[in-house]
């Protein structure tokens, strides 16, 4: 059975069921390509897993304390790529400095949260759920954005997509989930078995758990189908060459998805390996280099497509690392770090706030001055046009990004 027949037949057989017809109706109405965010803007989140050392990423190259505390791993001042008189980027991040020069990069220093937790899993949980450090939430902030943006409307998991095989907590809402796919064709193939397409017709609703499973399955199959069809029609034509590594591939996929006009508002991507307890310099340089290269290609691609003002890329890590290096040429788990915002039509060349104050540490760690939820609130409200208070559970003072 081809897609059209499948859809037509599903729409017929599904009459009377509450969940699937809405979804299919939306498909038939081609409402799916319409942007979810009233602003029409797209947010791309890049998570650096493992706790990226922010001090060696945005380097305070005029600060004696920095060089004193890091005798063997500090980035020499003459190697730094200066952003201003105080701070500069890690030398491996040349493509990022180019974006800064083009007025596309905003650096936010000292981002963290009260009572920081130095455990990877817990701190990642906090960033993904946007909870307090003493609070446990079972839904993620992007998932709750989906809940909020789709409230009372058709259910469309592809509105927030994680380019991966599995779905992060960040993407799981209270009632809706985003979807994950490493590439549209792979997911499409996964849903093409006779058993799965055969079952996605079914929609028994006599039992809540059964109904939930079939609803999830139907949405997955339809979304996989929709995303595949869309991306098949339109190929990115910019000719941008992406670097040949995982993040490069994933951002390439994000760009293809954006350019195919899916109507997805948030994309989520992660890269791991930043847990640099030993021999940090080589490892971090390699990863930051990959990051900058991939982001550089991504932004060039979007520029070519005339979309760089519609897409903002945000990068964060679950925590930064200790100011003082350890005995193994590495760093241990710390607290505040930096967040990058790239593109999105922001004004040019900015470092949003002061550099870290290395003479005013808390137990040897940086003291945060910006709560990461202020950034979320600002992006949700000012950029995506969403109800930040409902999504984050309370109000956070917005940042003046514009």
């Amino acid at each position, binding site marked *: 059975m081809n897609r059209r027949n499948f859809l037509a037949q599903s729409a017929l057989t599904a009459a009377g069921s509450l969940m699937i017809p809405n979804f299919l109706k939306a498909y038939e109405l081609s409402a799916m390509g319409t942007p979810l965010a009233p602003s029409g803007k797209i947010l791309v989140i890049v998570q650096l*897993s493992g706790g990226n050392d922010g001090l060696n990423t945005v380097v305070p190259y005029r600060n004696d304390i920095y060089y004193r505390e890091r005798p063997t791993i500090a980035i020499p001042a003459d190697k730094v790529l200066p952003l201003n008189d105080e701070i500069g980027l890690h030398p491996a991040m040349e493509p990022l400095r180019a974006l800064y020069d083009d007025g596309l990069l905003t650096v936010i220093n000292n981002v963290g949260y009260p009572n920081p937790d130095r455990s990877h899993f817990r701190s990642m949980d906090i960033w993904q759920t946007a909870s307090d450090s003493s609070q446990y939430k079972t839904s993620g902030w992007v998932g709750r954005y989906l809940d909020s943006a789709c409230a009372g409307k058709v259910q469309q998991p592809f509105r927030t997509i994680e380019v*991966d095989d*599995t779905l992060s907590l960040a993407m*799981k809402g209270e009632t809706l989930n985003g979807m994950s796919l490493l590439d549209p064709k792979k997911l499409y193939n996964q849903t093409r078995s006779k*058993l799965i397409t055969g079952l996605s017709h079914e929609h028994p609703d006599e039992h809540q*758990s059964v109904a*939930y499973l079939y609803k999830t399955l139907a949405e997955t199959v339809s979304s996989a189908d929709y995303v595949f069809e869309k991306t098949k029609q339109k190929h990115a034509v910019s000719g941008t060459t992406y670097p040949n590594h995982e993040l490069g591939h994933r951002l390439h996929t994000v760009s293809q998805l954006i350019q195919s006009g899916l109507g997805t508002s948030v994309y989520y991507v992660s890269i791991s390996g930043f847990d640099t307890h030993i021999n940090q310099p080589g490892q971090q340089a390699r990863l930051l280099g990959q990051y900058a290269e991939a982001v550089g290609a991504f932004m060039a691609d979007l520029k070519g497509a005339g979309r760089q003002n519609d897409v903002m890329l945000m990068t964060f890590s679950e925590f930064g690392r200790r100011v003082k290096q350890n005995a193994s040429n590495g760093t241990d788990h710390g607290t505040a770090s930096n967040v990058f915002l790239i593109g999105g039509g922001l004004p040019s060349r900015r470092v949003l706030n002061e550099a870290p104050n290395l003479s005013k540490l808390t137990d040897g760690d940086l003291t945060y001055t910006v709560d990461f939820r202020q950034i979320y609130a600002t992006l949700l409200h000012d950029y995506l046009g969403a109800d930040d208070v409902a999504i984050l559970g309370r109000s956070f003072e917005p940042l003046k990004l514009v």
Partner: protein
Amino acid sequence: MDTYEKNRQAQVRYLYSRAAFGATPAELTQAVEQPLRKTIRQLFHNSASVSDLIVVEPEQNQTRPVLRQLVRDGQLDKEMLRERIKQNAQKIRDLNLLWVDRMAAGSGALREKMALFWHGHFACRPSGQNALFMQQYINTIRRHALGKFSDLLMGVSKEPAMLQFLNNQQNRKNAPNENFAREVMELFTLGRGNYSEHDVKEAARAFTGWQYTPAGQFVFRERVHDEGDKTIFGKTGPFVGEDVIAALLANRQTARFVTSKLYRYFVNETEDKKRVDELADQFYKSGYDITDLMETMFGADWFYDARNVGAHIKSPVELLAGMRHTLGITFDQPQPQIFVQRTLGQTLFYPPNVAGWPGGRSWIDSSSLLFRMQLPAYVLKAAEVTIRPKEDGDVNTETLARKGGNNFRTTVDWPAFEGAFATVDDQKLTDAIAGALLPFALRPDQRTLIVSQAGTANDRSQRIRSLTVSIMALPEYQLS
């Protein structure tokens, strides 16, 4: 099979799926022939004794501080240090796999099922890759899993793994750390909203001195204990940790909180308030007798109500252990079982946070559902696995999961499984297998699909295998 037998089989299948990790067709056949009460008693009887999970001997265990000292003394170089830390992490993986083996083994499954519940309730992750501490912790849970909740609570609260995880080693007179006291109230006993911040602060003072030795012994260190008077729940005295635990157990809210959680896990996520109140009352009056409470639940008519059957979404470990037990599966290389746990979001000994796994619908999203539906093919047909779980950021755990993740070579006890259907007519075969595996009867359209999947295999054995893979791939197989 007549209607009476079918109903009885459905009841027994359901009981085994909740009070154990599913049943083999042979177990079902046997249980159908006896009163339900006898089957329930048998489940408890088979779980009466317990033997520890052992992957590391106490004298072999080298904690991180010990290893660091060896480095300082020049007995270990950096490379060897890294190797040792990795070996410790591998021991925790071995403990995980050994425990899954016990779950899948069948006999004693009720105890392991309870222990899995308690592991989520008393959520704990290894700090510093200390395998010995995790081994002690899980064996304490398994030992008391069907005993008195009071013993379980006290035992787990004094486990080095827990004291370490909740930072009670840093809880000292003049430098309190309230983490442990708070979680004991919020997560282990009363639940949020049933104590004050003041109670937490004062209880934390009572828990000062609850520490452990590197060898894994609980110790009370008087030096760091705050001997002053504390006021907790309106009573004042020079309380120690044991007094706090006793006060928490004396509070009926503890019975209510724990019973409610057990009900939601073993019966239905949607709580029946009146029923839980009654059960909690009984639990309290019995002196927190867990066996007594669970026997009442499994024996009650309402336990078998249609709205409860099939309402529970299996956790990844329940799914894995259940599949293994029902089909007598052994993995040639056990590593893929960690891969499955990670991909589906439930790695034993690595709960997401102190609140444990949220469970229910949170297990299911687009990718996890597709993976779950493909799992039978991976496990039973060694189909190629093309997906990869996310890395968790921690340099120490990342190396573990990568290797051999997708090498699903297994041995299945097909003769035993097929044998149980030897006398079933060909026409009835599909429904008979479904009856042993699913909480609901197949709908006609499902049956047609399943049968068409099995193709034209004339060989009965091939046919049974193919039907089983397809039936296990149904969304309904995710439910118990």
